[in-house]
Structures are given as C-alpha cells and as structure tokens.
C-alpha cells in the first residue's frame, strides 16, 4: 500500500506528518511512502533525507493525493490557496485519510469527506486509554506545547527564571503559576523548574497533586472540596461555588507570580475564563501570561489568538502554533504516533478498520463515507475516574477532616461540649458540699495549667517528661504517709506503709532516671 504525505498548506504550519525516521518504520510495516517535495522543510527535513530513508519524493500535489492509498497529514484538510481548491476535494473516491480533524469544529470538512465516501481517522479522537497512549497525538503535542510555552514566556520575560547570586547583585527566582496539570501543564512545570523557577500549579483533579509534587512544584488548593475528574482523564466543569473559590485563589496568585501559563480545557466546550482583566492588571509590570487554550477562546480574558499583546505592561501570548514552533521534534512525535496507529491497525494486510478495536473505533470519523463519530462511549478503564477517591489526594479526606471540612460540626460539638460542661458545673454546684467544690476548683484549674504546660514540652523530651511525671505522681506517697500515721488499726497502717514503699520506688526511680537521661542530651 502507498502512503502519501502532502505538504501542509495552512500558513505557519511547520510540522510534517512523517519524518525520514518514520518513513523507515512505515516501510518496515510494509508500506511504500511517497512524500511531496518540500513537505519536511519547515521541520528541517530535506527531500534528500526522505530519499535516503527510502521514500519517493514527487512534486505534483494532485498526483500525490490521487495516486496513493492512504493520505497522512497533520492539519485537517484545508483550502490549498496555491491550487485554488480544497484539500478534501483532492482525496480520491473511497480514499483514506489520517490526520488531525476536530470533527466537532470542522463539520463542513467532514461533510465534504463524507461525500467522497472517504474513510477518515481523526488523530485527535484517539481515546485516552492506556493502550492507545503510544498513538495519542494530543498528549505528545501537549507535552511539546507545555515546554514551548515556558520558552516563549522566558523569551518575553525580561528577567532570569532561576535566582542568581553574583558579584553584580542578586536576583530572586521567577515565580511561575501553571493552571491545569494535564500533559501540557506538567511539561511546563518540568521546563520551568529546569530553568530554575519557583513553580506552583493548580488543578481541579485531585489525582494531579502527586504528579505536580513529583516534579518539584507546589500544589495549590482551594478550600472547597469537589472531585474534578471528568471522563477520560480530562477535567470536568466544576460547580459555581468551586469556581468562585478557584477565582479567588487565582486573583491572589496573580499578584504574586511573574509568569502564568494556563492550560485549562473542557472537552467540546469553550475554554473557561480563569484570568480576568483585573487579574492581568494586578500583575507586576513585565509579567507574562501564556494561554495554551487560545485556540478555544483562551483562559485569559485579554488573550488574542495567534498574537502577543500587551495589557498594562503584561505580555499575553496567545500562540496557537506552539507545537509548530518546535517543528522537528513535534514532527518526530507525531510521526511515531501515526506509525503506532498503523501498526495497531494493519497486521500484514495493510490497512484494516477493526470496529472492535477501541483505539481505532474512537478515532474513526468516517467509514467509507458513513458517519461514525462520535463513537459509543468506552467503559472507562484506564485513568482514575471518580468513583473510588484517588488515593493520592485522599489525605485531604480522611487525614484532616477535623481541620478542613466540618467547621460547623466542630463548632456544634464545641458548643454542645460547653453546654454539657456548664450543666455539670451547675449540677456539682447544686449538690456537692463546700469542701468538694473547693477541691474540684483546684482540680479543674490544675488540669488547665497542665494542658498549657505540656504543649510546650519539646517532643524530643517526651520520654524524660514521662519519667518526671511518673516521679511526681509518686506524690501518692503523701496518701500513704497520712494513712500510715493517722490510724491505730494495724491493717490500715500496714497498707499505708506498703503504699509508701511502692510509691517511693516511683519517686526515687523516676527522678533519678530522668536525671540520667537529661545528662545525656548535649549539643
């Protein structure tokens, strides 16, 4: 079977779907690869390199489209200005296409392809299951976008990322806030940390905490509990209260940080606005915002897609072609994802659409012209969905319940406790005799003194503390002496004397062993 790799026609697109390296892999799978001349130029792959890898290079675009069995490209089919026609019209009848497609946003293109009875696999629709990870173009591209976002930010940021102490003065490390710890966010964290910045990250999904922390960034939290795990490892839309808490957090953070990188997307929805105009204005002059959601409307109110704008001395970068700005490696990853998909699909017959294969079924948009999208939902298996609370975060649930959530409950408990205390005080006051009440007063006050006192004891001295309290609880010896002396009954005296004996073991033993231990503590 012949695979055709056309030159990308969208302005600014520098990636190419197949690199010389992947040509070799595809040939290994039994495909013949035909590349349009100049297809790899933007990603720094020469035609010679393709030839050397065993591909055929041809000049004629139309011949490339019509003369091959499978077309593999990066961008969805678009208008080819040079030829004055739409790419989908170049696809032969019952042709096959593998590319990014975003069928939800490109209905017209899908319709055109359907007319041609095409079979189309959208790489952006590969389901997020473990098995399909190697084909997941969105992940591999997000990784690149996250890295590039940091590079772009540092380019526009007039300061160091890492702190420096030099003879010419010192600088503090840049503070970077990353919103959304998906693949792009995590990659951005790693890149920013690599440059030496102090990084904090926020995500609604609790499972992100450990991932964020493992990269050495601080995980920010709102004081509001709601699980953010949506289907397929993406975030879901959160409740109104949560969003309010979240916005307060961002407003606080914006005033502190130098760089904000936003990566928040919700499947098939406009990207949520997380950074408002006021927050932008509250940032220090020279700060930079990189909005990775620019293509879907942006997470920042001031974002202009594909542009760099300045609002009150803050640079806002809305590039939608970040992956294209790292074209060589982006192409390499893209190509490898495609190879894995084809490897999964073909066996030796070339190209077989297996409707039972979750990964293929998910990506399949048109099957010989028949609309297959959206695919039936997959029973979620891989990434942690909501039902069992994800283990990593769970400390938030069982560990600190008393501190975190039931503020009202604790308050209620406290007032109930207070009431009970007041009632028992009243009961004692009403019934007990004066002597008892006097002793009781001493007792309660002593408990409070003890309570205040013991918290000051350093944990390292807890063993000596036990020994010394042990010794002074030997004060029971006083009881033994009183009883031993104040009576004529023989039995009573004997009991008293034995009590003195055992209590004095306590007194002497306790104090001496404490002394011995304390002598050992040295600086």
């Amino acid at each position, binding site marked *: 079977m012949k695979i055709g790799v056309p030159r990308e026609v969208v302005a600014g697109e520098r990636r190419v779907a197949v690199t010389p390296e992947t040509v070799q892999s595809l040939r290994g799978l039994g495909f013949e690869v035909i590349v349009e001349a100049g297809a790899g130029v933007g990603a720094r792959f020469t035609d010679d390199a393709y030839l050397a890898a065993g591909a055929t290079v041809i000049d004629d675009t139309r011949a490339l489209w019509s003369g091959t069995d499978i077309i593999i490209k990066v961008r969805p089919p678009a208008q080819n200005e040079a030829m004055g026609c739409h790419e989908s019209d170049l696809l032969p009848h019952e042709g096959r296409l593998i590319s990014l497609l975003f069928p939800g946003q490109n209905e017209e293109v899908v319709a055109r392809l359907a007319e041609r009875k095409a079979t189309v696999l959208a790489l952006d629709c590969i389901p997020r299951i473990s098995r399909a990870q190697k084909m997941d173009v969105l992940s591999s591209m997000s990784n690149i976008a996250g890295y590039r976002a940091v590079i772009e930010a540092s380019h526009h940021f007039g300061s160091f990322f890492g702190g420096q102490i030099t003879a010419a003065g010192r600088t503090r490390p840049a503070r970077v806030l990353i919103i959304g710890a998906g693949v792009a966010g995590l990659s951005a964290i790693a890149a920013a940390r690599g440059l030496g910045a102090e990084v904090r990250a926020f995500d609604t999904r609790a499972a992100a905490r*450990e991932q964020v922390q493992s990269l050495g960034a601080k995980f920010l939290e709102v004081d509001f509990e709601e699980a953010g795990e949506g289907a397929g490892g993406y975030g879901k839309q959160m409740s109104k209260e949560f969003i309010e808490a979240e916005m307060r957090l961002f407003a606080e953070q914006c005033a502190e940080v130098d760089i904000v990188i936003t990566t928040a997307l919700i499947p098939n929805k406009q990207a949520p606005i997380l950074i408002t105009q006021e927050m932008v204005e509250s940032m220090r002059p020279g700060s930079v915002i990189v909005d990775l959601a620019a293509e879907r409307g942006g997470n920042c109110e001031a974002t202009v897609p594909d542009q760099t704008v300045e609002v009150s001395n803050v640079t806002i970068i809305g590039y939608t072609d970040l992956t294209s700005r790292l074209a060589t490696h982006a192409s390499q990853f893209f190509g490898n994802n495609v190879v894995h998909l084809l490897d999964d699909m073909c066996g030796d017959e070339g190209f077989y659409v297996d409707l039972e294969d979750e990964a293929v079924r998910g990506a399949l948009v048109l099957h010989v012209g028949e609309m297959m999208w959206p695919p039936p939902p997959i029973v979620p298996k891989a990434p942690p969905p909501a039902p*069992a*609370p994800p283990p990593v975060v769970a400390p938030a649930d069982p560990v600190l319940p008393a501190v975190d959530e039931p503020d009202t409950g604790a308050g209620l408990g406290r007032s109930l406790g207070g009431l009970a205390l007041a009632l028992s005080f009243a009961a004692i006051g009403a019934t007990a*005799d004066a002597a008892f009440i006097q*002793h009781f007063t001493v*007792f309660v006050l*002593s408990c409070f*003194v003890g*309570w205040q006192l*013991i*918290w*000051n*004891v*350093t*944990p*390292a*001295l*807890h*063993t*000596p*503390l*036990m020994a*010394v309290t*042990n*010794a002074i*609880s*030997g*004060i*029971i010896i*006083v*009881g*033994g*002496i009183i*009883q031993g*002396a*104040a*009576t*004529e*009954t023989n*039995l*009573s*005296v004997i*009991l008293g*004397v034995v*009590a003195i*004996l*055992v*209590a*004095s*073991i*306590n*007194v*002497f033993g*306790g104090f*001496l*062993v404490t002394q011995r*231990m*304390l002598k050992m*503590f040295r*600086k």
Partner: protein
Amino acid sequence: MENLTNLVTMAYLAAGILFILSLGGLASQETARRGNLYGIIGMVLAIAAVLALAMADTPRPTTLPLMLGALALGGVVGAVLAARVAMTSMPQLVAALHSFVGLAAVLVGVSTFLHPHGEAVGVVELIEIYVDVALGAITFTGSVIAWAKLEGRMSGKPLLLPGRHLLNAAVVVGVVVIGGLFVKTSEPGAAILGLGGLEWLLVMTVLCSVLGIHLVVAIGGADMPVVVSLLNSYSGWTAAAAGFMLQNDLLIVTGALVGSSGAILSYIMCKAMNRSIWNVVFGGFGTAEVAAPSDAPAVEGEVQAIDVDGVAALLAEASSVVVVPGYGMAVAQAQHLVNEFGELMRGKGTEVRFAIHPVAGRLPGHMNVLLAEAGVPYDIVLEMDEINDDLADTSVVLVIGANDIVNPGALEDASSPIFGMPVLEVWKAGTVVVLKRGMATGYAGVGNPLFFKSNTRMLFGDAKDSMGGMVSALRS
C-alpha cells in the same frame, strides 16, 4: 497545731508550684535539668511537710521508723532500677513505675476506707474512695501487662477475645452496680448477699484488675507508646482521685498535671498515627477489618539488595545524609554505632541529620533518648515536620529498623490500614538504603512499597552488624 497545718498547706503550695516549674523546664533541653531539680525539691518539701504533720498528731509514734524504713527501702530499689536500666528498656521501666502508682492508690484507698480521714463519711467520700481504688486497680494491672509485653515476657501481639467489647461493657456496668452496693453496705454490720462494704470494695478491685489486664492485652506492640502514655495519664487521675479522697490539694494538683500530661502525649501519638484514641484502645491493629494477608500481595516487585561496600560507595558521593531510626535500631542496640557513623560522615564534611517520627520506638521520644545516650547532638535530631520538606534534597536516607513510619502506602494507598498516617517521605530522597533483617512486615502487618521503589536499596542483616561494617568501611 493550727500553725503547723497552715505551714504545711503553704509547703504544699510551694511543692505544687515547683512541680509546675518542673514540667515547664522540660520545654527545652537547656532548662530540662533545672526542671528536674525543681521536681526533686518539690517532692522533698512535700514529703517533709506531710511527715511533720502526720507525726504531730499521730496516735502511734512508733510508726515513724516503719515509714522511714519503707521510704528508704523503696528509695534504694528505685535508685538501683534507675541506675541499671538500659536506655532501650525505658518503656518497660516507665510502665513498671506506673504500676506502682496504681498499687499505692489501691492500698491507700482501702486503708482510707478502713480508717476514714474526715469525721463524717458521706456518700461523696465513699464514691471518692471507690473511684480511687477503681482507677488504681486498672492502672496497676494494665501497667503490669504493658510492662510484660514491652519486656518480652508476653507476646506483643494483641490478644482479642471474642465479644471483648461486650465483656468490657459488662465489667463497667458491674463496677457501677457494685458501687451502689458498696455505698449501701458501708455502714458497719450492713451486708448484701452476705458481703459487707470492704468485701464489695475488694470484689470491685478484682473486676477492675481484670479490666486493666483485658484492655492492655488487646493492644498490639506498635500501639504501646499510646498505651504507656495513657497509663501515665491514668496514674495521674488516680493520684488526683486520692487527693479528693484525702482532701489533699497537693495530690489533686499533681495528679491533674500528670493526668493532662499523659492525655496530651496520648493525643500526640494518636495524631501521629492518624487514629483516634478509641481506635487505639478498642480497635486493635490486625483485627478483622484489616485482614493483612489479603492486602499484602498488593505490594510486589523486585527489591534491589546492596552490600555494605555498595552503601559506602553511595555515601562517599553523598552531600547530605538523613538517618531514620526505628524500633529495630533499639532492638539491635545499634545506636552507638549509628552515632559513630554520624561522626565519621560529619568529619568528611557530609551533612548528617536524624529524622524522628513521633511514634518511632515504644515510648514517646524514645529514639531521642537513645540517640542522646549514644552522644548524638540534639540539634541535628529533627522531628518529622521539621525535616520532611528537606528529604527531597537529601542524597542518601538511611532507614535503620523502621518500617511503617516510612511507608509510602500511608499516603498513596487508600486501602492500606495505615492510610492517612503522616510518614517520613524518605522515598523523595536521591537514594534510600533500608537496613532490615528480612522482608517481614512492620507491626501494622502492612506491606511496604518503599522497598520496591527504584531508588531504594535493601541492606539485609542485623542493624548492628551492618552499621559496624559501614563504620569500618568509612574508616578505611
């Protein structure tokens, strides 16, 4: 006589203040020794005052030599115990001392019943005696069992009788009912079921003794720090109850101080294990809900063993080392070698610190005492909260005979029985070397994923031998 009573009361006040200062002194290592001295002065003052008072109106002056003799004998026994005890055996000693307080309280209580202190014996006084004896008996037998468990005379495993909660509840109800009978029969000559007041008091003492035994046998070895602190607390409340009984404010003050102290320590321990006091006392590790064997297979994989030379090579390149001691270090008596190791490493310019988990060992602060005994300076011995954030920047962590307190499952695995317990996050360090006899689980009976992490190396063998090997490797 009036004057003497007032003088003695003032002496009690002074003693109380000295005890407060004594506990206050323990706030830091610098003031701790002075604190202990205050305690001793307070105690001497109290004993002298009460002796003076007791002798002034005693009907039988001959008891004085008897009492002084008992005091001296007890003093000698106590001094010998204190001088001889190995620092690794501190938990046993503390438990044993608690039992003496309990025993003394029972004796004083019974004695008071036989010869009441005040003129009129009302219901309140009877209840005070009853409570004092009950608390004393529980403290006494509970401490004896705790001592036996810590000393190894008894298995550290929790003994769980069927229906034990019911049993406990029945005993408590029984104690209350007998309390009623006791009050009713306390008049001379009065009897119910043929038993008089004293007999009923003794029946209750036996019941409470059984309760004390039963409560402590059900608690596993790892929970001993909590139990010992709890018994510490009980011994305080017992003394306070005796104070009510004898109408003695010094006993009340001291008892309340000790009682709060033990309660706070128990609370700290429980928090460090993320468990409630109820769970520790009545839950029992290794009971049905845990079912360790079915959980254990969750942890699997390859462990990477290492030998002493390998560790020495690792250490040669380390810029910072953190040592995490656990009960295993105490058992192997390796603390002196650990100190020597620390000195050698510090001599080479490596930063060496010690990380102490609040529940490491069998007594609150036990590890600190052992390290202090070996001569480790206390300013490089840090608490968990002080060091956890630094572990990620540490080159090598040496875990010596610790298991549950470094278990990542406590943070990551919701099904783990120790889930939610704060732990030392040693796996964040460059390399973790675990000194361990074999692959056995810790007291919680939980598998430890730490051993299977890619940056973990296992150094199998006795901790003392391993440390000795490392010290000589560092020397050469």
